[in-house]
């Protein structure tokens, strides 16, 4: 077991490095990061500024420059380590990030760590709530369809879950918003965080938007596993003992049948994070997703890089723990 964990940790570290490097490099290699900081000034040729530095020309209007342009460029380069190569910059950025300094936005100078602190909890609560919704629906649903497999309810369930899986989350969000907020005015149209109750109300529809499709996924897996489990001897024994069906389903059959659901838990959290981008937008929730989309739109690479890295690392960690749990539950995995 110890060796298993060590191997997983090594793999985790490797993946974290590659994920962050990929993110960092993609936004630093393509395009000119200097443009994002100094705008049009980045168009001033290096030679011109070098000539100014050597005192050969004046940085005045006559040479097409404004006084101080070159100084600003030099300052911007120095402050952002643009004169170093990508690998070095990546190293500096990563060590800063590890010490909690995510840098600042190019556009508005905000501390990115503040953005993360403010936005991340909202998204985490949304995702947790979505998982709760998904499991809350999927478990009774899966049990009910497995209980009388291939009967009417089960068949209808299959159609229903197919339907849910075929609705894009942005479409589902728009539909839920239309009915529950506009038509029936059951849920508020505004995110408010004045205590847990107001936040819960505001997050309910988004959580259902994210959770319904996932519930269908879970239901299908759970149903299949339950049907297998119900063939097991111990279930027959329980039946023979005269236990109620309900008791058997929930107390005995359910736990060993949750295996597949746990397996896809990590992957689906990734789907939820992606879905949060869209769903937060629809319901105007101030989470990581909205900030990320805004940062992309306003061309703010430091914020984009940091947020994607944080999200990706979080995702990797979740999968890591799911994996450990899986290894713990299933001895075969450990020894392979």
């Amino acid at each position: 077991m110890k060796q298993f964990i060590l191997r997983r940790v090594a793999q985790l570290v490797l993946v974290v490095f590659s994920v962050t490097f990929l993110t960092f490099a993609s936004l630093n290699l393509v395009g000119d990061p200097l443009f994002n900081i100094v705008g049009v000034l980045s168009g001033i040729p290096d030679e011109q500024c070098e000539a100014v530095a050597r005192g050969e020309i004046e940085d005045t209007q006559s040479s097409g420059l404004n006084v101080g342009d070159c100084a600003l460029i030099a300052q911007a380069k120095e402050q952002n380590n643009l004169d170093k190569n990508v690998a070095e910059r990546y190293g500096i950025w990563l060590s800063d990030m590890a010490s909690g300094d995510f840098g600042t936005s190019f556009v508005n100078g905000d501390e990115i760590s503040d953005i993360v602190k403010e936005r991340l909890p909202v998204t985490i609560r949304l995702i947790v709530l979505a998982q709760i919704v998904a499991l809350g629906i999927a478990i009774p649903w899966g049990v009910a369809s497995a209980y009388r497999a291939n009967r009417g309810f089960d068949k209808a369930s299959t159609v229903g879950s197919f339907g849910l899986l075929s609705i894009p989350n942005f479409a589902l969000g728009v539909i839920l918003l239309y009915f529950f907020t506009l038509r029936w005015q059951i849920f508020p149209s505004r995110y408010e965080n004045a205590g847990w109750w107001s936040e819960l109300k505001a997050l309910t529809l988004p959580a259902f938007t994210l959770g319904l499709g996932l519930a269908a996924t879970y239901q299908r897996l759970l149903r299949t596993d339950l049907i297998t489990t119900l063939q097991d001897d111990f279930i027959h024994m329980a039946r023979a003992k005269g236990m109620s069906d309900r008791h058997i389903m929930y107390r005995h059959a359910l736990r060993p049948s949750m295996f597949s659901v746990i397996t896809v838990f990590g992957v689906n959290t990734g789907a939820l994070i992606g879905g949060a981008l869209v769903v937060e937008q629809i319901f105007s929730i101030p989470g990581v997703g909205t900030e990320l989309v805004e940062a992309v739109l306003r061309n703010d690479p430091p914020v984009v890089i940091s947020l994607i890295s944080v999200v990706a690392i979080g995702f990797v960690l979740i999968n890591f723990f799911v994996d450990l749990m899986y290894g713990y539950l299933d001895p075969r995995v450990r020894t392979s």
Partner: protein
Amino acid sequence: MSEIETTGESRLEAISMDDDVVDAVKKKLGVGFWIAVGWLGLLVATVVLAPLLPFDDPDKLASGPARTGPSMDNWFGTDALGRDVFARTVYGARVSLVVGFIAIAFGMVVGGSLGMIAGYFRGRVDQVISFLFFTLLSFPGLILALLITSTFDRTLRTVSLTLGVLAVAPVGRLARAATLVFAEREFVQAARVIGAKHFRILTRELLPVVLIPMAALALLGMGVAIVAEGGLAFLQLSVEDISWGVIINDGRGIRDLQENPHVALMPIGVMFLTILALNFAGDRVREYFDVRETAF
């Protein structure tokens, strides 16, 4: 199996093909499958023939009064600018279908090749390729798409290839797992014994059998790609052209939802039916060949 293989997701793609594929052929695809294929065929035909059919110009203002519901003149009603929503939905399908198709084709070619190479050669090559897949899967899908489109541009090509990159890892893993299984089979071993070249074994012996589970995944994956494109378009980060996501986003303003919900709901309906058809057809194909896999 390499150690990477044993992580959470990969087990999902564990694949078991019936030993006797002939058995499978006896099963039926069912009426539902043909309805799904019929819908997809109708959609493709409409999209291809759209310029010849008497539909309105999707960009023409005031094809009818603005914000009116479905009628004989405007089957899906008109939007805030009086444009015909039916025409827009048909033209929007063009982008959605093209993106979905190119994305999955790219995923099949690149992911399939890498996966087969990994599964066939194993060892170091397998480790490197599997790690690549693992890294790609370490990004939540839409986030990776966002990263790529924000790095490059928003042309049809970039968006399609971006979603293609997303498809690489899942398709690749499936191809790898299938290759691992089939590489042990007699017909492959026999080819080896008679001294066939690796390339020949991969293309002549393995590819045909690996393609079957991949085909099922391709149908499902095309649905995923269309949804992903819709999501990007919804965030206005996709192609700058009409696509389903664009129309739905245009119709989701609070006043639009109240005055003319059909602008969003009609394309949602068409999109839903299309994804449903792809999912259903993919599922039938999967069951038909008894391919077990769930992750994409």
